[in-house]
């Protein structure tokens, strides 16, 4: 059972109850006023009737009428009590059940008084000509009972109806929420792979925004899953292909019929081991960049750009035909950011440049506005591939044999960690790539 259903039923029942209570209060108040008015009029009429008899000199008849008003009993019969007093304070006549004590004071008109502990509402007529005072009274207790019985009569069906109403509300709410349950059932019945959007068209308008949000989430999760699958597939390819090469070359070395074949195979094994080593290094760097949080900017020190670059150039093997120039002005440039990230970024850019210059040429590191840049004399990158090359394992059309498709990905991530932005563009002056690293607030 959904708690939404319970809430709705409770809210509906409470609201109905409150409305009913208000209505009952209203009816109680208005019935009471109306009743008071009717009873007061009756009191007045009864008093006038008795008085008219007295006025006709027929005190005995008046006394009989008063008598007829009768003793009080449990019902509403003989509710009225009547007293006829002489002006000198003698009780001339009274109805049965009327108290001996005066029901009201000497004043004419309506009054209320407690006699023998019982509250009375009394109408008094004063007749100085005949020397009598006629008092007709109602027990207020009886009046109250009348109102109570009236309201009780109204409330009795409510007590019967409330459970029926509750049942009706319960069933209606259940039916009203059925589309929600249908959608929940649809989603619950899916396995982890099923990312088809839930059809919002069939759903009621109220839950459509929810469904659209869920569908949006589905799309995001599916994209993330696909991305993960792609990366896994690429990683498998990039790792297994060199392993296959190694194994094949090793088997050739073992089976080689002559020395040159064996030597060639062993040479290939050496190259392949170097390449695989670099791939593993890059995969680990990538895992580290993704897996550890960036150090806080204030903890990062400053690194001398020239010295760091010369370190990297010294550590990186390169063919004879490639010439590397590190501009001397870089010695005065201090780079902000995590030193490890800076090292990763510059090293991967440097290796990338070397990789793409099989034909030799020069690699130039120099300062540029807000940071530093490197220019190579390789084939550059096709314009349409420029936004793609920083993707994991993406290798452009002009790929080199040695590349893993990770270098520029690592450089971009490391640059972001060092608080900088890596921009790649083709050189305008000649063939080649220009990579610039720019800090928003300057390098130093």
């Amino acid at each position, binding site marked *: 059972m959904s708690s939404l259903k319970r809430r709705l039923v409770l809210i509906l029942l409470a609201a109905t109850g409150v409305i009913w209570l208000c209505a009952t209060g209203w009816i109680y108040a208005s019935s009471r006023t109306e009743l008071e008015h009717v009873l007061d009029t009756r009191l007045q009429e009864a008093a006038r009737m008795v008085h008219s008899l007295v006025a006709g000199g027929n005190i005995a008849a008046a006394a009989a009428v008063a008598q007829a008003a009768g003793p009080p009993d449990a019902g509403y019969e003989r509710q009225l009590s009547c007293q006829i007093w002489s002006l000198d304070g003698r009780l001339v006549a009274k109805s049965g059940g009327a108290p001996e004590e005066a029901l009201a004071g000497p004043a004419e008109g309506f009054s209320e008084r407690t006699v023998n502990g019982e509250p009375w509402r009394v109408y008094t007529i004063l007749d100085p000509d005949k020397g009598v005072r006629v008092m007709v009274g109602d027990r207020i207790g009886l009046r109250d009972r009348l109102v109570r019985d009236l309201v009780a009569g109204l409330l009795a069906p409510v007590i019967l109806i409330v459970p029926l109403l509750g049942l009706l509300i319960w069933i209606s709410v259940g039916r009203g929420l059925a589309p929600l349950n249908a959608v929940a059932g649809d989603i619950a019945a899916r396995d982890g792979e099923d990312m088809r959007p839930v059809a919002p068209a069939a759903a009621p308008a109220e839950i459509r925004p929810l469904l659209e949000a869920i569908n949006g989430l589905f799309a995001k999760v599916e994209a993330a899953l696909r991305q993960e699958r792609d990366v896994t597939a690429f990683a498998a390819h990039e790792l297994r292909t060199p392993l*296959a090469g190694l*194994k094949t070359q090793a*088997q050739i070395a073992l089976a080689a019929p002559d020395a040159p074949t064996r030597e060639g195979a062993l040479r290939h094994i050496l*190259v392949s081991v170097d390449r695989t080593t670099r791939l593993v290094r890059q995969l680990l760097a990538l895992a580290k960049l993704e897996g550890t949080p960036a150090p806080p900017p204030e903890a990062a020190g400053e690194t001398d750009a020239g010295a760091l670059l010369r370190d990297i150039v010294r550590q990186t093997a390169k063919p004879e035909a490639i010439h590397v120039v590190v501009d001397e002005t870089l010695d005065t440039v201090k780079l902000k950011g995590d030193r490890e990230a800076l090292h990763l970024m510059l090293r991967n850019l440097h290796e990338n440049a070397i990789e793409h210059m099989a034909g030799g040429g020069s690699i130039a590191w120099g300062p540029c506005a807000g940071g530093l840049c490197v220019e190579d004399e390789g084939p550059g990158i096709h314009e349409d591939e420029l936004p793609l090359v920083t993707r994991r394992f993406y290798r452009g059309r002009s790929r080199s044999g040695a590349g893993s498709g990770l270098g520029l990905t690592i450089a971009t991530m490391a640059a972001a960690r060092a608080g900088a932005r890596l921009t790649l563009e083709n050189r305008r002056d000649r063939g080649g790539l220009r990579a610039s690293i720019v800090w928003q607030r300057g390098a130093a």
Partner: protein
Amino acid sequence: MRILVVEDDPILMDGLKVGLGLAGATVDDATTCADARAALAAARFDAVVLDVMLPDGSGLDVLAGLRMRGDATPVLLLTALDEAPDRVRGLDCGADDYLGKPFDLDELNARVRAIARRGHGRAGPLLKVGALVLDPATLAATLDGRSIALSRREFAVLSALMERPGVIRSRMEIEERLYGWQEEVESNAVEVHIHNLRAKVGRETIETVRGLGYRVRGPA
């Protein structure tokens, strides 16, 4: 046996060329889908070893295009993706076999021989014509049970003729089986090999059909 290898990793490619070559095959290489399509359109191969992830697309597309043209050249897919669904997709695309990286070179050779022989309509591993028997797996030849020593090229020429006994093979066809694109074809190489083979397996086994080529006489 002439084989096209489509693979973009240079070291693996070298290994495949040398490894298949050691097993007696003539190997041509292609590193992209475009190269592979051009090669398949230009020449007939006994088998193709095809990588799936290539720089300019998927090897599966090359395979699908090949089958669409009605070309039945046997294809072995070679790929890093070797989960069951990948294998199923590859085979359903028209591949004859599937091998995951890294693989055993001997197994690759055996599988290539197997799909090539199926491609030629044979089920048995041995080539037999009369008393002459060739075993492509070991590059061994026997005549009346006696082993005869053949060079790799001689074996290739003889197996080309024995694959379809009685059918005439032109000199050009035999040359294609012997040399890859990058190799220099010696002008009278086929004649020299045929001459040497006749000395080893008997004059009458290989017949010259003047102006057309050569054939091995069928058992009939």
